[in-house]
């Protein structure tokens, strides 16, 4: 019953998307009339229908309706309710439904409130959105139906991968999806503007909140995913250049470039074709992220849904959307002039430089991610990992960070380095001082050394746009930029510090013994069994003290889940302002314990990671900065509109 309702709502949403596409296309031809009036209502109802379908899926998971195949294969009646609900999108079909539901709701929102652009452009935008939506509906209904029934309901479900039974990870995929959806909306605007030849500053202002919003979610999603990998996988790594991580990084890089390019278009009416191109690229990257991850084409720690049969469908959709968008761009780009000109030493110049650098980094990540897949098709297996991505990415990232330090100090259109000589010299001095300090500590490789020096310089430089300004009069969007740039400096510092200064200790320890790692001494008090709703565990009770200070208790676990059977390590962390102590106790099998005579020894893995937390603090700051900018921009827009409306009223009164 519930499943039937959900499927019916999904079909209804698909039909409405078809109507929205048809009416939107018709409206382009003859100025619309009857067809044009249908587009916005269709978009609104489509969003509601699709959201309804998703709520039905949540319901099925909440009550563990085992007659539904998706529930039976991904859930279990003994699971805590929160993980039953998050299990609804912890799988391929459910996550696709969530994706399209959020996208349809975004469509409803723009159909309801967005009236700044010419109506023809808006209708083209909504038609483009419906076109993207239709592909997803077809994919869901024909090859990934979340509401598929089983003729014979099993007695119990198969359970959810225990690695996914974690609140951080439960929220991680939807966060990324919100980001992808934001980029798809930006793409629809770009297509609408391109089709109706309305690539204007107004278009950039309308698109910008969606890019900013997408960027907030992508940043948070990547940050959360990195922290999850860090504490859940049990080895203290926070970035693996794993294909799935790359799949989320690539849209972020493209969105970063798009955001800055759209800002130039909005403020200065320059970089028109560039903004459109980046819109197409950002959307292509989110398609790649969505489809490749869930399809299992990328085999990696994250690819839990391995199903190659869907590959053909996915490749067709990717070719259709990415190919179609690029073809449209190629056809129409000639008619979009580049807009206002500017000098090399200007804020636009710096932004162009960094957009090129971001695009190059994106190309490197794309190459390193897809190349092994390509060679595998010819039976040659190569691995591309950190030793490739780090140095090759740095070739473009280092100049980018340098220009990023100076760019915000420059004026629009034309400026000279001589005017900002003093701050630039100060930034340079900090850069060299930080590098010298790192060299004095010693044992730091080139890349972390560069990271430490650049992060110090960038942290200072990011605050400079505030100098000689009255802080309470600085617009919110400028605060957003300052906070986001400062956040990036913080994150880079965390990465460099963790890479340069981490200390690792592996030891087989008997209860009562003490191990030293960095400034910490860690004593194993005892090891006891423990159990949860769907797991058993051995739990190490550790007492750690930092430089012989107050003792801190750490209780790392090694868990054995039984539905499905899997072992996981639950690390324990002691967080200080200047870093984290990371403790893992070996698995319950023979790896964990070694018996020598009468003494039972337990495998402990300990790390002291100075300032590692700054990586994620930085990520949060970046997201906060873009959220501030988003609020600032939207508030300014609303204000401008009310002022204009009031002025119009007054004019009308005068005429009367």
């Amino acid at each position, binding site marked *: 019953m519930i499943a039937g309702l959900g499927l019916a709502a999904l079909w209804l949403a698909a039909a409405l998307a078809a109507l929205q596409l048809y009416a939107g296309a018709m409206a382009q031809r003859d100025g619309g009339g009857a067809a044009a009036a249908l587009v916005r209502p269709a978009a609104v109802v489509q969003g509601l229908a699709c959201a309804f379908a998703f709520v039905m899926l949540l319901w099925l998971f909440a009550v563990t309706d085992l007659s539904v195949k998706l529930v039976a294969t991904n859930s279990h009646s003994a699971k805590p309710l929160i993980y039953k609900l998050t299990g609804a999108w912890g799988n391929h079909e459910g996550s696709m439904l969530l994706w399209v539901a959020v996208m349809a709701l975004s469509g409803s929102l723009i159909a309801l409130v967005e009236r700044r652009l010419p109506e023809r452009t808006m209708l083209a935008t909504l038609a483009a959105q419906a076109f993207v939506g239709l592909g997803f509906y077809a994919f869901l209904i024909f090859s990934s139906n979340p509401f598929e029934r089983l003729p014979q309901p099993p007695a119990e479900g198969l359970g959810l991968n225990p690695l996914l039974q974690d609140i951080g990870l439960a929220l991680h995929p939807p966060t990324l999806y919100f980001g992808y959806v934001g980029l798809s909306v930006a793409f629809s605007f770009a297509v609408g503007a391109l089709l109706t030849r309305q690539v204007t500053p107004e278009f950039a202002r309308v698109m910008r909140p969606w890019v900013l919003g997408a960027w907030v979610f992508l940043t948070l999603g990547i940050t959360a995913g990195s922290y999850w990998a860090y504490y859940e996988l049990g080895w203290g790594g926070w970035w693996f250049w794993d294909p799935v991580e790359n799949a989320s990084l690539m849209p972020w890089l493209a969105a970063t470039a798009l955001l800055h390019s759209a800002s130039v278009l909005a403020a200065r009416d320059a970089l028109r074709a560039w903004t459109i191109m980046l819109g197409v690229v950002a959307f292509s990257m989110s398609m790649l992220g969505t489809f490749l991850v869930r399809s299992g084409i990328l*085999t990696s720690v994250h690819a839990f849904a391995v199903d190659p049969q869907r590959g053909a469908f996915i490749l067709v959709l990717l070719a259709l959307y990415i190919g179609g968008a690029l073809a449209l761009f190629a056809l129409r780009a000639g008619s979009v002039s580049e807009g206002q000109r500017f000098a090399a030493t200007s804020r636009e110049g710096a932004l*162009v*430089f960094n957009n090129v650098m971001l695009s190059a980094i994106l190309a490197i990540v794309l190459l390193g991610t897809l*190349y092994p897949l390509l060679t595998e098709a010819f039976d040659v297996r190569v*691995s591309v990992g950190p*030793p490739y991505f780090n140095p090759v990415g740095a070739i473009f990232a280092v100049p980018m960070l340098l220009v990023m330090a100076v760019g915000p100090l420059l004026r629009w259109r034309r400026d000279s380095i001589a005017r900002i000589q003093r701050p630039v010299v100060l930034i340079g001095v900090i850069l060299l001082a930080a590098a010298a300090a790192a060299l004095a500590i010693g044992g730091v490789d080139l890349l972390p050394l560069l990271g430490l020096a650049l992060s110090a310089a960038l942290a200072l430089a990011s605050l400079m746009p505030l100098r000689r300004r009255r802080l309470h009069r600085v617009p919110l969007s400028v605060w957003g930029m300052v906070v986001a740039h400062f956040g990036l400096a913080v994150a880079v510092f965390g990465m460099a510090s963790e890479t340069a200064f981490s200390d690792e200790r592996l030891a087989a320890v008997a209860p009562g013994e003490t191990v030293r790692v960095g400034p910490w001494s860690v004593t194993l008090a005892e090891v006891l069994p423990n159990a949860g709703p769907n797991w058993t565990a051995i739990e190490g009770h550790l007492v750690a003290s930092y430089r012989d200070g107050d003792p801190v208790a750490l209780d790392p676990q090694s868990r054995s889940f039984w539905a499905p059977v899997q072992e996981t390590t639950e690390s324990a962390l002691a967080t200080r302002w200047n870093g984290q102590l990371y403790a893992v106790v*070996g698995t319950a099998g023979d790896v964990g314990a070694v018996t020598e005579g009468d003494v039972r020894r337990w495998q402990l893995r300990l790390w002291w990671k100075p300032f590692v937390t700054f990586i994620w603090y930085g990520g949060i700051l970046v997201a906060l900065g873009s959220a501030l900018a988003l609020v600032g921009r939207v508030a300014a827009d609303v204000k401008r509109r009310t002022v204009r409306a009031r002025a119009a009223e007054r004019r009308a009164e005068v005429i009367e």
Partner: protein
Amino acid sequence: MRGGGILAALAALAALALVPVLAAAQQDMPPAPYAYRQLDDPAQEAEAQALMETLRCLKCQSQSIADSDAPMAGDMRHQVRTRIAAGEEPEEIRAWLVRRYGDYVSYAPVIGETTWPLFAVPLALLLVAGAILWRRLRGAR
């Protein structure tokens, strides 16, 4: 003929029955000594660690042998540590592992017949990025 067939079938059955036992025995074997033990010399350990982080765990999905609990990763860590302790150079060990397991085991691609695009493309990118910037920023003065 027929008797031979039955015997063969019995032998096959016996072999099948043994397989899980053998597999279990293999899994229950204690890990190699240096899988979870560091070298005493910190300099050597750092060298081993740096190398381990660039070697792929062949039984895992996208993890290095320094990041994995898989038994095979443990064995490989043991190999790396004992060879470093015996005075071998990290790149010699990498070459030995590549001979044994193929290029796939190393996360650090080297320029070769199948990998040259990985190095040619960044070079091309440098040129293209330079050309774009030159055109955009010079022509605009």
